[in-house]
């Protein structure tokens, strides 16, 4: 379980997170939604210790992330950010290999190679395994990075808007993959999403944020409903159930 207690963060005068307290139980897919500037990415980065909070505490399976050695955490929790610029010239397989660094410290064993292959298979990247990252399309590159964090083989997987750069087909495939990772491999996935319909169709739990606070959290059925969505986004959003999926309508 990831436990967040009284977390606050400001950038200069702008307070991005205000006293956030939240428990994220183990297992399943949890989506973080909310308007721009709600603090979703900041929350994710704080959990992944990429930035330090002004106050508050985060524990992962009871370990305070501020005190736990980086390598120890890296075997339990992985994050993939939105923007991934690589200066290094690496192949897809080498990038996947870096996911094994917390386990092998750079000396890949047979088990590591097996884990890398599994991750590449999972993302359907075997055909591209020896291509350099800078020769790939945006979507392929995104998948290569996901392969890296999958190879990291952590219990918790944090992704910041992984659907950016992906077309509809690959977006759908990515969400199905995260869902499979959660339900088949027993991982806990926390994902920031912009598209509330992807969140509605693929999550077990939705956490809605607004103005640096937790606005609501619950099942998709509870959150993807006209009333909470109107208050969250300040606009009228109709919700219809189509083939058993709750779809928000906000295009018209």
């Amino acid at each position, binding site marked *: 379980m990831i436990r967040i207690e009284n977390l606050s963060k400001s950038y200069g005068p702008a307070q991005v997170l205000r006293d956030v307290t939240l428990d994220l139980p183990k297992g399943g897919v949890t989506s973080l939604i909310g308007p721009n500037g709600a603090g979703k990415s900041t929350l994710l980065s704080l959990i992944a210790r990429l930035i330090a909070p002004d106050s508050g505490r985060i524990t992962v399976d009871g370990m305070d992330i501020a005190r736990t050695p980086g390598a120890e955490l890296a075997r339990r929790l992985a994050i993939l950010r939105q923007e991934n610029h690589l200066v290094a*010239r690496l192949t897809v397989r080498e990038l996947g290999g870096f996911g094994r660094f917390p386990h092998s410290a750079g000396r890949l064993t047979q088990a590591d190679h097996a884990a890398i292959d599994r991750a590449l298979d999972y993302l359907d990247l075997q055909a591209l395994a020896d291509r350099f990252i800078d020769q790939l399309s945006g979507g392929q590159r995104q998948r290569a990075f996901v392969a890296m964090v999958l190879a990291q083989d952590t219990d918790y997987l944090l992704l910041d808007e992984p659907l950016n750069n992906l077309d509809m087909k690959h977006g759908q495939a990515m969400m199905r993959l995260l869902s499979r990772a959660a339900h088949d491999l027993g991982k806990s996935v926390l994902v920031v999403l912009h598209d509330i319909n992807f969140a509605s169709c693929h999550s077990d739990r939705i956490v809605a944020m607004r103005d640096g606070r937790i606005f609501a959290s619950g099942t998709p059925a509870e959150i993807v409903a006209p009333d909470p969505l109107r208050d969250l986004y300040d606009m009228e959003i109709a919700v219809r159930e189509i083939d058993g999926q709750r779809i928000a309508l906000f295009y018209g």
Partner: protein
Amino acid sequence: MPHERRARLALIGLALLAGGLILAFMTLGARGNWDFVLAFRGRKLLGLVLVAHAVACSTVLFQTVTANRILTPGIMGFDSLYLLCATLLFAAFGAAGMAGLDPRLDFALNVAVMIGASMALYLWLFGGEERSLHRLLLIGVVFGIFLRTLAEFVQRLLDPNEFMVLSDRLFASFSDIPPQLLGIASLLIGAVTLWLIPRLSRLDVIGLGRPVAINLGITWRTEVLAILAAVSVLVAVAAALVGQVLFLGLVAVSLAHLAVGQSAHRYVLPAASLVGIILLVGGQMLVERVFAFGTALGLIVEFVGGITFIALLVARGRR
């Protein structure tokens, strides 16, 4: 894997070329007493090799922690920082205080001050808000000019006699590598190199950039500051041996990347060192034997390096 083989072949090729040049440097056109010639040229060669290795390694490390292929310690003003530190230290103690001091001790003191000062410079440049690459470069270049002018200003404030002592002690050039520092320079560079070897794969991870590296379990701040301390030592050694070499690192490392075609440190670091050695030893030979000039290698490096840098910037802009 094919590209690993290519990298290995490139390393072997570079090593052979460097070895050949070194052999030629030691023997070409030598007349008279061999013992003398070998000892004389050997010292010169050792100086060039140390500088090449120090500049190449410091540049690779700096580019790794800044996740960038254009920034180098020389361009970002770290060489000039050494010049200023040494000048200020000298001004603080005065010629009389320094005269009694062993030059090696003096140098060690300079290195210590340099480590502190360059950490401060790094944190100032990279610690705060994120800046665009071009702005960062411009800041680095102008700050380098500022530091150099400040050093010159302080030197002018000294008594002219003291200034003579200072320039004897501090301002070296390729033709005038201070022999008394070769021992301690070898020691320092050797220590840093040994320290680096077990860290090669960790450097690869750090080169992926801060977020990815932290995700993979790197304790970013500690690691980066340690690497920076190593960079400071290398920069200080190179600057003490030959003075400023703004663009050598950029040229050597860019060529090394071209040669090995990938970015694992176990290939790039030795390749950059070898390219540096090829450039310096080959260049010195060219300057001495072909053009019969003697002391202009620094200027040539500056000239070629500056053009390379402009070309890199233009090429980046076009992409």
